């Protein structure tokens, strides 16, 4: 549905994005992840035909964003990062205006407007001017205008920013429910959001693509350098040195001090010796210490993200 090939954008001499390539299948929800200034907004602006790329190609539904801009624009709903709206219009009037511009059938306009106002929980502000709305409500109006023509492709730049927790949940489930029928690209800084609603993640850093995969794969791939948490009753110094001696363990540290000398330790295993974990209990038994807990520590998407982004820099 969306094909991006070697997309590059330069702002004068400054870097925007560099040689970005990825595709999105129909019905997929793709998360766009990256630190500030990574190039997420830049990529989205190119995809929505607001800005041309310096080189490379991008196609939506088979139409080139540059050559067939009008055809592309008929098929997308876009929520820009800053949510720019006409502040001097009332919410339903604004939505009717957008519906018209997006080519919604005249007879359907009223129905579509009330539909998206329900979906985005806007009925409470139906008499207000957009300029009087709070940030969260503006965000919802922005989302509503993107959804108004029920587009095939939705491009949402940080859609849940500024919403209250309940609304975040509602909007997330709304986006999730759109997937399947609609293709969605969304950018975000909230990582759990990505594992919650996206089938695939694109991680981008300093304008370059760092990883494209499912959230599960990304997690699994990086969990090979595993960490194990144990809770052991025994003298702290001795535990640290004995466990540290095990072949394959790269580092042991005290995570938490408990009562009765029962402490939690974090053990990091060397990347290529992840099964060294099996040698830990025998040592503890041999020393006659008590083993209260032993479990692998999963890396959260946050850890992976930071790891990918910083590894990239070291290379």
């Amino acid at each position: 549905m969306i094909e991006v090939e070697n997309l590059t954008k330069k702002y004068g001499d400054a870097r925007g994005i560099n040689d970005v390539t990825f595709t999105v299948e129909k019905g997929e929800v793709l998360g766009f992840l990256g630190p500030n200034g990574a190039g997420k907004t830049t990529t989205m602006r190119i995809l929505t035909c607001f800005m041309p790329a310096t080189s490379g190609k991008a196609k939506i539904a088979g139409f080139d964003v540059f050559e067939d801009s009008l055809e592309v624009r008929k098929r997308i709903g876009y929520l820009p990062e800053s949510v720019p709206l006409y502040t001097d219009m009332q919410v339903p009037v604004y939505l009717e205006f957008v519906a018209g511009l997006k080519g919604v059938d005249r007879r359907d306009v009223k129905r579509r407007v009330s539909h998206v106002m329900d979906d985005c929980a806007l009925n409470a502000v139906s008499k207000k001017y957009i300029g009087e709305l709070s940030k969260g409500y503006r965000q919802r109006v922005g989302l509503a205008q993107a959804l108004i023509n029920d587009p095939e492709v939705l491009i949402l730049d940080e859609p849940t920013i500024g919403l209250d927790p309940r609304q975040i949940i509602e909007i997330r489930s709304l986006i999730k429910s759109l997937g399947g029928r609609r293709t969605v690209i969304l950018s975000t800084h909230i990582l759990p959001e990505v594992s919650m609603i996206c089938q695939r993640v694109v991680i981008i850093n300093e304008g370059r693509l760092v990883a494209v995969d499912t959230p599960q794969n990304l997690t699994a791939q990086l969990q090979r350098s595993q960490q194990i948490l144990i809770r052991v009753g025994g003298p702290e110094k001795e535990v640290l040195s004995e466990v540290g001696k095990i072949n394959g363990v790269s580092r042991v540290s005290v995570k938490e001090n408990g009562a009765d000398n029962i402490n939690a330790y974090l053990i990091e295993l060397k990347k290529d010796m992840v099964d060294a974990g099996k040698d830990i209990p025998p040592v503890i038994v041999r020393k006659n210490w008590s083993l209260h807990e032993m479990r692998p520590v999963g890396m959260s998407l946050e850890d992976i993200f930071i790891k990918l982004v910083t590894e990239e820099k070291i290379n």
Partner: protein
Amino acid sequence: MRNFYLIFLKELRSYFNSPIAFVVITIFLVLSGYFFYNLFATFSTVSFQVMTQPMLARQYNQLNITEMVVRPLFSNLSLFMLIMLPMLTMRMFSEEKKSGTIELLLTYPVKDSEVILGKFAGCMGIFTIMILLTVPCFILIGIFGEPEMGVIVSGYVGLFLMGAAFISLGIFASSITENQIVAAVLSFGSLLIFFMMGYSAGFAGESVGSILKYLSFMPHLYNFAKGVLDTEDIMYYFLFILFCIFLNMRTLESKRWRG
């Protein structure tokens, strides 16, 4: 066509949702009313003097309401338009650029020409209301004197075309900057140059002079005020407007090209 109409309506509405239309129209009418009063009062004083002292009539070889009130009033109105219309047009694209709404507007399936013409028509709407509100001045003139109707009609046609030219240039100026003040100064300055260009025609050689004279607003306005509806003058305004709209489309397009 539907997009054009929607943008036209939106622009018209937003003029009335803000104080801009109200302030611009009011100041324009106050200025016009004041100058109309002056012209009219002068005319009636002079007429009265001439009536009592027929000898004076020789000094005023054209004691005629068309010459003394209608024509000067039209050239005053054109001057006020020169001052007020850049205030109407300055926000057209600058505001959208500054607030970022242009990002959404340009990613809707709308042609650039529809956007520009819609905005142009919105401005023309306000401007039309503005000059229609000056009609009472001419009705008063009609009640107290016998002006030449032809001159009034062609004068209005001239004003209307000139206003359209001012607006097209103003909207173009606002499309090249995101700062409204810069847009207003740009359009006011360049309109003033077009206004005055004819003056330098006298001392710039013959061929250059005639070009300058043709490009200037003045001689065309003068023809309309004489009551002459010449196709050449009408063409002049049409070409001027088309050229500005063309430049405007280029700026929007180059935004898509160069970002």
